[in-house]
């Protein structure tokens, strides 16, 4: 691991206005919008929307960070880095840590606004679950971003990301709350890691349709493991071929 490398990664990401808008601005705006529309119907609704929008912001940030790998590969920057003492593991670790750091602002901001302006009130350990919990639960998405970044090209990355984001957020129960899903759709949702991501926070705000924390953690850990193996394999193959 190299601190110098990590610092530059973070500074570069923060420069992207697209990143700030999509990972911090959008979730906050959507949260306020959805609470305005559905918040009065059910006392649990603001909490559920908070969890879903926090998850949305965090997973967007985590995926975004990894997708930048595709651009660096295309530009030959990865090859240039292979001519430095930075090992492949250091490169991937820095990318992963960057992704996690980028997910942090949204994870703090949405719950903060929910608490301050929309009267969401939770116990300290429930808050911890909604913030720290969701943040940690986004690890598999950081890894997924890295994997996509290793597979995609500079041109194909945009459409790939759009599709992945759409599937994760629509079918995974973020934009279409699982409360309103027919059972067929719900069983599809359960195949996606984004469903399990929202489940990490959901248990803190409602017991309705919630699964146990342990089960959600286990499923997400499984996703992390599988995707992580994919990243390592792909990186090795890439290094050998180029």
């Amino acid at each position, binding site marked *: 691991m*190299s*601190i*110098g*490398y990590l*610092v*530059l990664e973070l*500074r*570069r990401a923060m*420069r*992207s206005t697209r990143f700030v808008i999509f990972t911090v601005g959008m979730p906050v705006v959507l949260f306020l919008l959805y609470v305005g529309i559905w918040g009065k119907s059910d006392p649990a609704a603001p909490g559920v929307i908070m969890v879903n929008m926090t998850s949305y912001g965090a997973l967007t940030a985590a995926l975004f960070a990894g997708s930048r790998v595709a651009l*660096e590969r*295309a*530009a*030959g*920057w990865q*090859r*240039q880095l*292979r*001519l*430095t*003492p*930075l090992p492949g593991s250091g490169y991937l670790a820095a990318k992963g840590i960057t992704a996690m750091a980028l997910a942090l602002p949204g994870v703090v901001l949405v719950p903060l606004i929910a608490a301050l302006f929309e009267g969401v009130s939770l116990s300290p350990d429930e808050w911890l679950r909604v913030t720290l919990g969701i943040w940690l639960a986004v690890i598999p998405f950081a890894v997924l971003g890295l994997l996509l970044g290793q597979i995609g090209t500079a041109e194909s990355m945009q459409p790939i990301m759009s599709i992945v984001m759409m599937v994760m957020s629509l079918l995974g129960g973020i934009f279409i709350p699982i409360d309103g899903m027919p059972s067929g759709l719900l069983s599809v949702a359960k195949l996606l890691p984004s469903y399990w991501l929202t489940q990490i926070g959901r248990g803190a705000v409602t017991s309705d349709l919630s699964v146990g924390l342990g089960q959600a953690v286990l499923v997400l850990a499984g996703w992390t493991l599988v995707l992580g193996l994919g990243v390592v394999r792909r990186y090795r193959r890439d290094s*050998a071929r*180029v």
Partner: protein
Amino acid sequence: MTEPKTVAAGAAVTLTGLRKHYGEVRAVDGVDLVIAPGEVVALLGPNGAGKSTTVDMLLGLTRPDTGAVTIFGSSPGNAVADGRIGAMLQGGALLDDATVGETVGMIASLHRNPLRVAEALRGAGIEDLANRRCNKLSGGQKQRVRFAVALVSDPDLLVLDEPTAAMDVQTRREFWLSMQDFTTSGRTVLFATHYLEEAENYADRVVFLSKGRIVADGSVAGVTALTSGRTIKAVLPGATGHALHKLPGVSEVDIRGDRIILSSNESDKALRTLLAEYPQAYDIEVTAIGLEDAFLTLTGHATLSDGGSAPTPPFEGNETR
């Protein structure tokens, strides 16, 4: 000509029996090369001759099918980890959203004993660009930033793949001046180039690659001597090819209107005979065969754009033309 065996022990670079095939294409087909510390070596060849593949294997970016690469007695990977190799690769290889200073500084932070960033920027002649974003640079400036990136580890071996490709004539000259500052400190340089002029002016030694093999290796003078002979040009109205062919040592005759161009490996004799037989000949020039001619001869009349679809920069400033 260098003698590989005498320098092999302490060599900067040793390539032995290097081969790399891509499917049916033999990109590199048995390359043996020893570079002594302090040598400045130009790697020349048409597109598709295997220059980049050779450079990639030398740097450890591509694994050879067979053969071995040794850099200062160890593997390319170890040499890279020790910061002993600096390289300018072909292509972009810069981050658009980072400044020049940040980029060079970050690379420096990865190395154990780097130059100061300001020093590397000065070495590449771009101190004034430190705060510029990389996407706001011209092609030539980008190349210089990449040169600074290659310099900042304070390497013993510098490998440059087409370093001046995006530069105009002026920038190219400045680049080679900064380069000479670097080589006067006794460091080793290997550069691949299309520009024969650069090889003639800046390299101690030239290596010609053609179809994945080395076809000539030696000093510029040594390599041009391989294709012996000189060219005689004159204006001679009414000359016939048949008669000119009988002049001593003449291998080729080219008649363009009143102008004749003769290639001869006995040019002094040929000229004397020519003047005796044709006293009316005037505007006579005798020139040595240059690197370009040698190149064309040695690579089997290949041109530098042979075998590749990429546009090729023209030869420049070769005094024999």
